[in-house]
Protein backbone atom coordinates (compact mmCIF):
# COMPACT_ATOMS: atom_id res chain seq x y z
CA UNK A 1 0.00 0.00 0.00
CA UNK A 2 1.21 3.43 -0.91
CA UNK A 3 1.51 5.31 2.39
CA UNK A 4 1.72 8.71 0.73
CA UNK A 5 -1.59 8.12 -0.95
CA UNK A 6 -3.07 6.91 2.32
CA UNK A 7 -1.94 10.02 4.18
CA UNK A 8 -3.04 12.29 1.38
CA UNK A 9 -6.53 10.78 1.32
CA UNK A 10 -6.70 10.78 5.10
CA UNK A 11 -5.69 14.43 5.25
CA UNK A 12 -8.34 15.29 2.68
CA UNK A 13 -11.05 13.48 4.59
CA UNK A 14 -9.99 14.78 8.00
CA UNK A 15 -10.05 18.34 6.65
CA UNK A 16 -13.64 18.02 5.42
CA UNK A 17 -16.13 20.23 7.21
CA UNK A 18 -18.60 17.44 7.73
CA UNK A 19 -16.05 15.14 9.36
CA UNK A 20 -15.55 15.30 13.12
CA UNK A 21 -12.44 13.18 13.20
CA UNK A 22 -10.75 10.38 11.38
CA UNK A 23 -9.61 7.15 12.98
CA UNK A 24 -6.59 5.40 11.54
CA UNK A 25 -3.49 3.62 12.73
CA UNK A 26 -0.07 4.94 13.63
CA UNK A 27 3.14 3.50 15.00
CA UNK A 28 3.04 2.76 18.69
CA UNK A 29 5.43 3.74 21.42
CA UNK A 30 7.85 0.84 21.04
CA UNK A 31 8.56 -2.45 19.31
CA UNK A 32 5.86 -3.82 17.03
CA UNK A 33 3.05 -1.85 18.63
CA UNK A 34 0.56 0.00 16.51
CA UNK A 35 -1.89 2.36 18.12
CA UNK A 36 -5.21 3.67 16.89
CA UNK A 37 -4.87 7.34 15.96
CA UNK A 38 -7.51 10.05 16.04
CA UNK A 39 -7.07 12.99 13.68
CA UNK A 40 -9.30 16.04 13.97
CA UNK A 41 -7.61 17.86 11.12
CA UNK A 42 -5.21 17.21 8.28
CA UNK A 43 -2.14 17.59 10.52
CA UNK A 44 -3.11 14.62 12.61
CA UNK A 45 -2.89 12.27 9.67
CA UNK A 46 0.79 12.84 8.87
CA UNK A 47 1.98 9.70 10.65
CA UNK A 48 -0.80 7.33 9.74
CA UNK A 49 0.14 3.93 8.43
CA UNK A 50 -1.34 0.73 7.14
CA UNK A 51 0.90 -2.24 7.75
CA UNK A 52 0.63 -5.93 8.62
CA UNK A 53 0.59 -4.85 12.26
CA UNK A 54 -2.67 -2.91 12.00
CA UNK A 55 -4.73 -5.68 13.54
CA UNK A 56 -6.88 -3.39 15.69
CA UNK A 57 -10.46 -3.19 14.46
CA UNK A 58 -11.31 0.50 14.48
CA UNK A 59 -15.03 -0.08 14.01
CA UNK A 60 -15.14 -0.59 17.79
CA UNK A 61 -14.76 3.14 18.31
CA UNK A 62 -17.93 3.91 16.39
CA UNK A 63 -20.05 2.70 19.28
CA UNK A 64 -17.56 3.17 22.09
CA UNK A 65 -17.55 6.94 22.21
CA UNK A 66 -19.72 8.15 25.06
CA UNK A 67 -22.59 10.50 24.32
CA UNK A 68 -22.33 12.82 27.28
CA UNK A 69 -25.13 15.12 28.36
CA UNK A 70 -24.57 18.60 26.95
CA UNK A 71 -24.90 21.90 28.75
CA UNK A 72 -28.23 23.58 28.00
CA UNK A 73 -28.21 25.42 24.73
CA UNK A 74 -25.28 23.52 23.29
CA UNK A 75 -25.92 21.57 20.09
CA UNK A 76 -24.47 18.08 19.72
CA UNK A 77 -21.70 17.66 17.19
CA UNK A 78 -23.40 15.48 14.63
CA UNK A 79 -20.66 15.48 12.05
CA UNK A 80 -19.44 12.24 10.56
CA UNK A 81 -16.74 9.96 11.86
CA UNK A 82 -14.28 8.71 9.28
CA UNK A 83 -12.45 5.47 9.80
CA UNK A 84 -10.10 3.15 8.00
CA UNK A 85 -11.21 -0.43 7.62
CA UNK A 86 -9.76 -3.71 6.53
CA UNK A 87 -11.97 -6.41 5.08
CA UNK A 88 -13.03 -7.81 8.43
CA UNK A 89 -13.50 -4.38 9.97
CA UNK A 90 -15.78 -3.39 7.13
CA UNK A 91 -17.95 -6.36 7.92
CA UNK A 92 -18.28 -5.01 11.44
CA UNK A 93 -19.42 -1.71 9.96
CA UNK A 94 -21.90 -3.54 7.72
CA UNK A 95 -23.22 -5.51 10.67
CA UNK A 96 -23.60 -2.32 12.71
CA UNK A 97 -25.58 -0.89 9.82
CA UNK A 98 -27.79 -4.00 9.76
CA UNK A 99 -28.47 -3.63 13.46
CA UNK A 100 -28.91 0.12 13.15
CA UNK A 101 -26.16 0.61 15.70
CA UNK A 102 -24.93 3.33 13.37
CA UNK A 103 -26.41 5.02 10.34
CA UNK A 104 -24.76 5.14 6.97
CA UNK A 105 -24.65 8.93 6.90
CA UNK A 106 -22.81 9.06 10.22
CA UNK A 107 -19.67 7.45 8.89
CA UNK A 108 -17.12 7.84 6.14
CA UNK A 109 -15.55 4.50 5.45
CA UNK A 110 -12.07 4.42 3.96
CA UNK A 111 -11.38 0.93 2.68
CA UNK A 112 -7.94 -0.65 2.91
CA UNK A 113 -7.72 -3.88 0.91
CA UNK A 114 -5.85 -6.19 3.21
CA UNK A 115 -3.29 -8.79 2.11
CA UNK A 116 -3.33 -10.35 5.59
CA UNK A 117 -2.13 -9.37 9.04
CA UNK A 118 0.61 -10.95 11.12
CA UNK A 119 -0.12 -12.62 14.41
CA UNK A 120 1.48 -10.21 16.92
CA UNK A 121 2.04 -12.95 19.51
CA UNK A 122 3.70 -15.23 16.96
CA UNK A 123 5.77 -12.37 15.64
CA UNK A 124 7.25 -11.37 18.99
CA UNK A 125 7.82 -15.00 19.85
CA UNK A 126 9.88 -15.62 16.72
CA UNK A 127 11.45 -12.21 16.36
CA UNK A 128 11.63 -10.85 19.90
CA UNK A 129 10.38 -7.37 20.42
CA UNK A 130 12.86 -4.65 21.35
CA UNK A 131 12.30 -1.13 22.50
CA UNK A 132 13.19 0.14 19.02
CA UNK A 133 10.13 0.86 16.95
CA UNK A 134 10.01 -1.75 14.22
CA UNK A 135 8.10 -1.67 10.97
CA UNK A 136 6.47 -4.36 8.91
CA UNK A 137 5.74 -4.33 5.21
CA UNK A 138 4.17 -6.67 2.75
CA UNK A 139 6.30 -8.22 0.05
CA UNK A 140 5.10 -10.31 -2.87
CA UNK A 141 5.17 -13.55 -0.93
CA UNK A 142 5.36 -12.57 2.69
CA UNK A 143 6.33 -9.89 5.13
CA UNK A 144 9.41 -7.77 5.61
CA UNK A 145 10.43 -6.82 9.13
CA UNK A 146 12.39 -3.58 9.31
CA UNK A 147 14.31 -3.21 12.56
CA UNK A 148 17.19 -0.83 13.19
CA UNK A 149 17.48 -0.32 9.45
CA UNK A 150 17.83 -4.03 8.81
CA UNK A 151 15.31 -5.86 6.68
CA UNK A 152 14.30 -9.47 7.33
CA UNK A 153 12.07 -11.22 4.82
CA UNK A 154 9.68 -13.74 6.32
CA UNK A 155 7.45 -16.13 4.36
CA UNK A 156 3.76 -15.34 4.61
CA UNK A 157 2.83 -18.71 6.08
CA UNK A 158 5.17 -18.26 9.01
CA UNK A 159 3.52 -15.23 10.55
CA UNK A 160 0.07 -14.92 9.03
CA UNK A 161 -2.61 -14.61 11.71
CA UNK A 162 -5.03 -17.50 12.03
CA UNK A 163 -8.03 -15.30 11.35
CA UNK A 164 -6.42 -14.16 8.11
CA UNK A 165 -5.69 -17.72 7.03
CA UNK A 166 -9.42 -18.33 7.25
CA UNK A 167 -10.42 -14.97 5.81
CA UNK A 168 -12.89 -14.96 2.96
CA UNK A 169 -13.32 -11.21 2.61
CA UNK A 170 -9.95 -9.44 2.53
CA UNK A 171 -11.49 -6.53 0.62
CA UNK A 172 -13.82 -4.09 2.35
CA UNK A 173 -17.47 -4.88 1.70
CA UNK A 174 -18.60 -1.37 2.60
CA UNK A 175 -16.59 1.71 1.68
CA UNK A 176 -16.85 5.28 0.48
CA UNK A 177 -13.26 5.59 -0.59
CA UNK A 178 -10.95 2.74 -1.54
CA UNK A 179 -7.26 3.34 -0.98
CA UNK A 180 -6.01 0.70 -3.35
CA UNK A 181 -6.99 -1.86 -5.92
CA UNK A 182 -8.74 -4.85 -4.37
CA UNK A 183 -6.36 -7.62 -3.40
CA UNK A 184 -6.84 -11.07 -4.83
CA UNK A 185 -8.70 -13.25 -2.34
CA UNK A 186 -6.97 -16.41 -1.30
CA UNK A 187 -8.39 -19.83 -0.74
CA UNK A 188 -9.46 -19.79 2.93
CA UNK A 189 -7.79 -22.54 4.96
CA UNK A 190 -9.80 -25.32 6.55
CA UNK A 191 -10.67 -24.40 10.11
CA UNK A 192 -8.89 -27.36 11.63
CA UNK A 193 -8.88 -26.02 15.17
CA UNK A 194 -12.65 -26.06 15.33
CA UNK A 195 -12.87 -29.42 13.60
CA UNK A 196 -10.43 -30.83 16.11
CA UNK A 197 -12.55 -29.79 19.06
CA UNK A 198 -15.72 -30.98 17.33
CA UNK A 199 -14.06 -34.36 16.94
CA UNK A 200 -13.51 -34.79 20.66
CA UNK A 201 -15.80 -36.69 22.97
CA UNK A 202 -18.17 -34.60 25.07
CA UNK A 203 -16.03 -35.05 28.20
CA UNK A 204 -12.91 -34.13 26.29
CA UNK A 205 -14.52 -30.92 25.11
CA UNK A 206 -15.68 -30.07 28.61
CA UNK A 207 -12.20 -30.65 30.01
CA UNK A 208 -10.62 -28.61 27.26
CA UNK A 209 -12.85 -25.61 27.81
CA UNK A 210 -12.70 -25.88 31.59
CA UNK A 211 -8.95 -25.67 31.31
CA UNK A 212 -9.26 -22.55 29.17
CA UNK A 213 -12.11 -20.89 31.02
CA UNK A 214 -10.47 -21.41 34.38
CA UNK A 215 -7.81 -18.92 33.23
CA UNK A 216 -10.41 -16.25 32.61
CA UNK A 217 -9.98 -13.25 34.91
CA UNK A 218 -13.26 -11.68 33.79
CA UNK A 219 -11.72 -8.38 32.80
CA UNK A 220 -14.29 -8.18 29.99
CA UNK A 221 -11.67 -7.05 27.50
CA UNK A 222 -13.17 -9.41 24.94
CA UNK A 223 -16.51 -7.72 25.30
CA UNK A 224 -15.18 -4.19 25.32
CA UNK A 225 -13.00 -4.62 22.28
CA UNK A 226 -15.72 -6.31 20.26
CA UNK A 227 -17.17 -3.92 17.68
CA UNK A 228 -20.50 -5.68 18.00
CA UNK A 229 -20.76 -5.67 21.79
CA UNK A 230 -22.16 -2.22 22.23
CA UNK A 231 -25.14 -2.53 24.55
CA UNK A 232 -25.36 0.46 26.86
CA UNK A 233 -26.41 -1.85 29.64
CA UNK A 234 -24.74 -5.23 29.24
CA UNK A 235 -26.53 -8.23 30.69
CA UNK A 236 -23.26 -9.29 32.29
CA UNK A 237 -23.08 -6.08 34.32
CA UNK A 238 -26.61 -6.29 35.62
CA UNK A 239 -27.05 -6.94 39.28
CA UNK A 240 -30.78 -7.44 39.45
CA UNK A 241 -31.36 -9.95 37.98
CA UNK A 242 -27.81 -11.14 38.13
CA UNK A 243 -27.54 -13.70 35.34
CA UNK A 244 -23.87 -14.27 35.78
CA UNK A 245 -22.33 -13.66 39.17
CA UNK A 246 -19.25 -11.59 39.38
CA UNK A 247 -17.29 -14.18 41.31
CA UNK A 248 -14.59 -15.96 39.39
CA UNK A 249 -14.87 -19.73 39.28
CA UNK A 250 -15.52 -22.54 36.78
CA UNK A 251 -19.22 -22.16 36.83
CA UNK A 252 -19.46 -18.41 36.39
CA UNK A 253 -16.60 -18.24 33.92
CA UNK A 254 -18.28 -20.87 31.76
CA UNK A 255 -21.62 -19.13 31.97
CA UNK A 256 -19.98 -15.84 31.08
CA UNK A 257 -18.19 -17.30 28.09
CA UNK A 258 -21.32 -19.06 26.87
CA UNK A 259 -23.30 -15.84 27.20
CA UNK A 260 -20.66 -13.79 25.44
CA UNK A 261 -20.33 -16.24 22.57
CA UNK A 262 -24.04 -16.72 22.23
CA UNK A 263 -24.73 -13.02 21.98
CA UNK A 264 -22.44 -13.03 18.98
CA UNK A 265 -24.02 -16.01 17.25
CA UNK A 266 -24.85 -14.94 13.71
CA UNK A 267 -23.24 -11.56 14.38
CA UNK A 268 -19.55 -12.29 14.82
CA UNK A 269 -17.59 -11.15 11.79
CA UNK A 270 -14.44 -13.00 12.84
CA UNK A 271 -12.08 -10.06 13.21
CA UNK A 272 -10.35 -11.97 16.00
CA UNK A 273 -10.02 -8.97 18.29
CA UNK A 274 -11.39 -10.76 21.36
CA UNK A 275 -8.73 -13.41 21.08
CA UNK A 276 -5.97 -10.90 20.48
CA UNK A 277 -6.73 -8.80 23.54
CA UNK A 278 -7.43 -11.63 25.98
CA UNK A 279 -4.81 -11.32 28.72
CA UNK A 280 -5.42 -14.96 29.65
CA UNK A 281 -4.88 -16.25 26.10
CA UNK A 282 -8.26 -17.98 25.91
CA UNK A 283 -8.87 -19.11 22.32
CA UNK A 284 -12.17 -17.26 22.01
CA UNK A 285 -11.94 -17.40 18.24
CA UNK A 286 -12.51 -21.13 18.38
CA UNK A 287 -15.95 -20.59 19.91
CA UNK A 288 -16.90 -17.71 17.67
CA UNK A 289 -15.82 -19.51 14.54
CA UNK A 290 -17.73 -22.62 15.54
CA UNK A 291 -20.93 -20.60 15.83
CA UNK A 292 -20.17 -18.81 12.57
CA UNK A 293 -19.68 -22.18 10.94
CA UNK A 294 -23.02 -23.48 12.22
CA UNK A 295 -24.78 -20.34 11.08
CA UNK A 296 -23.21 -20.64 7.65
CA UNK A 297 -23.72 -24.37 7.17
CA UNK A 298 -27.13 -24.81 8.70
CA UNK A 299 -28.82 -21.52 7.99
CA UNK A 300 -26.87 -20.33 4.95
CA UNK A 301 -26.28 -17.01 6.64
CA UNK A 302 -23.20 -14.85 6.87
CA UNK A 303 -23.25 -11.69 8.95
CA UNK A 304 -21.79 -8.36 7.94
CA UNK A 305 -21.99 -8.64 4.19
CA UNK A 306 -25.14 -6.86 3.18
CA UNK A 307 -26.16 -3.75 5.14
CA UNK A 308 -29.72 -4.28 3.91
CA UNK A 309 -30.11 -7.80 5.33
CA UNK A 310 -32.03 -8.82 8.44
CA UNK A 311 -30.16 -9.60 11.67
CA UNK A 312 -29.78 -13.36 12.08
CA UNK A 313 -31.32 -13.75 15.51
CA UNK A 314 -34.11 -11.30 14.83
CA UNK A 315 -35.34 -13.11 11.75
CA UNK A 316 -36.30 -16.62 10.75
CA UNK A 317 -37.17 -18.79 7.83
CA UNK A 318 -40.14 -21.13 8.09
CA UNK A 319 -37.91 -23.96 6.89
CA UNK A 320 -35.06 -23.46 9.37
CA UNK A 321 -33.55 -26.81 10.35
CA UNK A 322 -35.34 -28.47 13.24
CA UNK A 323 -33.84 -31.93 13.34
CA UNK A 324 -32.86 -31.38 16.98
CA UNK A 325 -36.47 -31.00 18.05
CA UNK A 326 -38.04 -34.02 19.74
Amino acid at each position, binding site marked *: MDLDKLRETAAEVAARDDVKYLIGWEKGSYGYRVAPAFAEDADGTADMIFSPLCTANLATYLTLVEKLPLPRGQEPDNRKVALMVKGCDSRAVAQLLVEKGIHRDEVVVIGCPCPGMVDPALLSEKYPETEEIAELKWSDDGFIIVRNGEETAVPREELLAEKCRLCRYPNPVVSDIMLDEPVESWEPAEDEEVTEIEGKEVEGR*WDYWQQEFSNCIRCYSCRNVCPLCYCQDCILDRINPSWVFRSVNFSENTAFNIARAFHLAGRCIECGECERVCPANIPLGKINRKLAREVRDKYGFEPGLDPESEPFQASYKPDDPEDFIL
Partner: protein
Amino acid sequence: MSANNEPNIVAFLCNWCSYAGADLAGTSRMQYPSNINVIRVMCTGRVNPLYVVNALQQGADGVLVSGCHPGDCHYMEGNYFARRRLGMLKDLLEYVGVDPRRFHMSWVSASEGHKWKEVVEKTVEDAREAGPFEGFRRRQIDW
Protein backbone atom coordinates in the same frame (compact mmCIF):
# COMPACT_ATOMS: atom_id res chain seq x y z
CA MET B 1 -29.68 -34.67 40.99
CA SER B 2 -31.66 -35.35 44.12
CA ALA B 3 -30.77 -37.75 46.88
CA ASN B 4 -32.66 -40.64 45.35
CA ASN B 5 -30.54 -40.35 42.23
CA GLU B 6 -33.38 -39.04 40.13
CA PRO B 7 -32.55 -36.41 37.54
CA ASN B 8 -33.83 -32.93 38.09
CA ILE B 9 -35.37 -31.42 34.95
CA VAL B 10 -36.42 -27.82 34.42
CA ALA B 11 -39.02 -27.39 31.67
CA PHE B 12 -40.00 -24.08 30.13
CA LEU B 13 -43.46 -24.47 28.63
CA CYS B 14 -45.34 -21.97 26.54
CA ASN B 15 -48.63 -20.89 27.98
CA TRP B 16 -50.72 -21.58 24.91
CA CYS B 17 -49.74 -25.03 23.67
CA SER B 18 -47.30 -27.07 25.73
CA TYR B 19 -48.60 -25.99 29.11
CA ALA B 20 -52.09 -26.88 28.02
CA GLY B 21 -50.73 -30.13 26.58
CA ALA B 22 -49.18 -30.99 29.92
CA ASP B 23 -52.46 -30.08 31.58
CA LEU B 24 -54.29 -32.42 29.27
CA ALA B 25 -51.86 -35.23 30.10
CA GLY B 26 -52.66 -34.59 33.76
CA THR B 27 -56.41 -34.46 33.43
CA SER B 28 -56.27 -37.57 31.24
CA ARG B 29 -54.47 -39.30 34.11
CA MET B 30 -51.47 -40.26 32.04
CA GLN B 31 -48.54 -41.56 34.08
CA TYR B 32 -45.22 -39.87 33.40
CA PRO B 33 -42.05 -39.18 35.41
CA SER B 34 -42.43 -36.55 38.05
CA ASN B 35 -38.88 -35.20 37.68
CA ILE B 36 -40.13 -32.27 35.66
CA ASN B 37 -40.25 -28.82 37.23
CA VAL B 38 -42.46 -26.77 34.99
CA ILE B 39 -41.92 -23.05 34.51
CA ARG B 40 -44.67 -21.46 32.46
CA VAL B 41 -43.66 -18.72 30.04
CA MET B 42 -45.92 -16.85 27.66
CA CYS B 43 -44.04 -18.03 24.58
CA THR B 44 -40.88 -19.99 23.80
CA GLY B 45 -39.72 -16.87 22.01
CA ARG B 46 -39.16 -15.23 25.38
CA VAL B 47 -36.93 -18.04 26.66
CA ASN B 48 -33.63 -16.30 27.04
CA PRO B 49 -30.81 -18.78 26.40
CA LEU B 50 -29.39 -17.67 29.72
CA TYR B 51 -32.43 -19.28 31.37
CA VAL B 52 -31.10 -22.60 30.19
CA VAL B 53 -27.54 -21.88 31.27
CA ASN B 54 -28.77 -20.60 34.61
CA ALA B 55 -30.92 -23.65 35.22
CA LEU B 56 -27.91 -25.88 34.62
CA GLN B 57 -25.84 -23.73 36.96
CA GLN B 58 -28.44 -23.97 39.68
CA GLY B 59 -28.61 -27.72 39.73
CA ALA B 60 -30.71 -28.92 36.81
CA ASP B 61 -29.49 -32.11 35.18
CA GLY B 62 -31.51 -31.43 32.08
CA VAL B 63 -33.53 -28.63 30.53
CA LEU B 64 -36.54 -28.88 28.25
CA VAL B 65 -38.08 -26.08 26.26
CA SER B 66 -41.42 -26.82 24.69
CA GLY B 67 -43.76 -24.70 22.61
CA CYS B 68 -46.33 -24.62 19.84
CA HIS B 69 -45.78 -26.31 16.51
CA PRO B 70 -44.34 -24.03 13.82
CA GLY B 71 -47.17 -21.97 12.41
CA ASP B 72 -49.32 -22.37 15.51
CA CYS B 73 -47.68 -19.72 17.70
CA HIS B 74 -50.17 -17.57 19.54
CA TYR B 75 -47.92 -14.62 18.72
CA MET B 76 -47.54 -15.73 15.10
CA GLU B 77 -43.76 -16.22 15.03
CA GLY B 78 -42.30 -16.48 18.54
CA ASN B 79 -41.48 -20.15 18.20
CA TYR B 80 -39.65 -19.58 14.92
CA PHE B 81 -37.27 -17.20 16.70
CA ALA B 82 -36.92 -19.66 19.55
CA ARG B 83 -36.07 -22.45 17.12
CA ARG B 84 -33.20 -20.48 15.64
CA ARG B 85 -31.93 -19.20 18.94
CA LEU B 86 -32.13 -22.40 20.92
CA GLY B 87 -30.83 -24.43 18.01
CA MET B 88 -27.69 -22.30 18.15
CA LEU B 89 -27.59 -22.66 21.92
CA LYS B 90 -27.75 -26.43 21.61
CA ASP B 91 -24.79 -26.41 19.24
CA LEU B 92 -22.87 -24.11 21.53
CA LEU B 93 -23.55 -26.13 24.67
CA GLU B 94 -22.50 -29.27 22.88
CA TYR B 95 -19.33 -27.58 21.71
CA VAL B 96 -18.26 -26.50 25.19
CA GLY B 97 -18.82 -30.04 26.39
CA VAL B 98 -22.30 -30.10 27.85
CA ASP B 99 -23.83 -33.46 27.05
CA PRO B 100 -26.39 -32.98 24.24
CA ARG B 101 -28.80 -35.20 26.19
CA ARG B 102 -29.20 -32.47 28.77
CA PHE B 103 -30.97 -29.98 26.61
CA HIS B 104 -34.02 -30.69 24.52
CA MET B 105 -36.63 -28.75 22.67
CA SER B 106 -40.00 -30.01 21.54
CA TRP B 107 -43.25 -28.95 19.95
CA VAL B 108 -46.29 -30.09 21.92
CA SER B 109 -49.72 -28.72 21.12
CA ALA B 110 -52.62 -28.36 23.55
CA SER B 111 -54.17 -31.56 22.28
CA GLU B 112 -51.02 -33.67 22.45
CA GLY B 113 -51.15 -34.97 26.00
CA HIS B 114 -49.75 -38.23 24.79
CA LYS B 115 -46.84 -36.61 23.02
CA TRP B 116 -46.08 -34.66 26.18
CA LYS B 117 -45.81 -37.91 28.09
CA GLU B 118 -43.37 -39.26 25.50
CA VAL B 119 -41.28 -36.10 25.48
CA VAL B 120 -40.95 -36.14 29.25
CA GLU B 121 -40.07 -39.80 29.29
CA LYS B 122 -37.38 -39.22 26.68
CA THR B 123 -35.97 -36.15 28.45
CA VAL B 124 -35.82 -37.84 31.83
CA GLU B 125 -34.35 -40.99 30.35
CA ASP B 126 -31.64 -38.99 28.57
CA ALA B 127 -30.77 -36.97 31.66
CA ARG B 128 -30.60 -40.17 33.68
CA GLU B 129 -28.21 -41.70 31.17
CA ALA B 130 -26.08 -38.57 31.15
CA GLY B 131 -25.86 -38.75 34.93
CA PRO B 132 -25.76 -36.02 37.53
CA PHE B 133 -24.39 -32.75 36.20
CA GLU B 134 -22.09 -31.54 38.91
CA GLY B 135 -19.37 -29.89 36.86
CA PHE B 136 -21.31 -26.75 36.26
CA ARG B 137 -23.01 -26.27 39.60
CA ARG B 138 -22.50 -22.99 41.33
CA ARG B 139 -22.29 -24.24 44.83
CA GLN B 140 -20.02 -27.08 43.88
CA ILE B 141 -17.18 -24.63 43.72
CA ASP B 142 -15.84 -22.69 46.68
CA TRP B 143 -19.22 -21.42 47.69
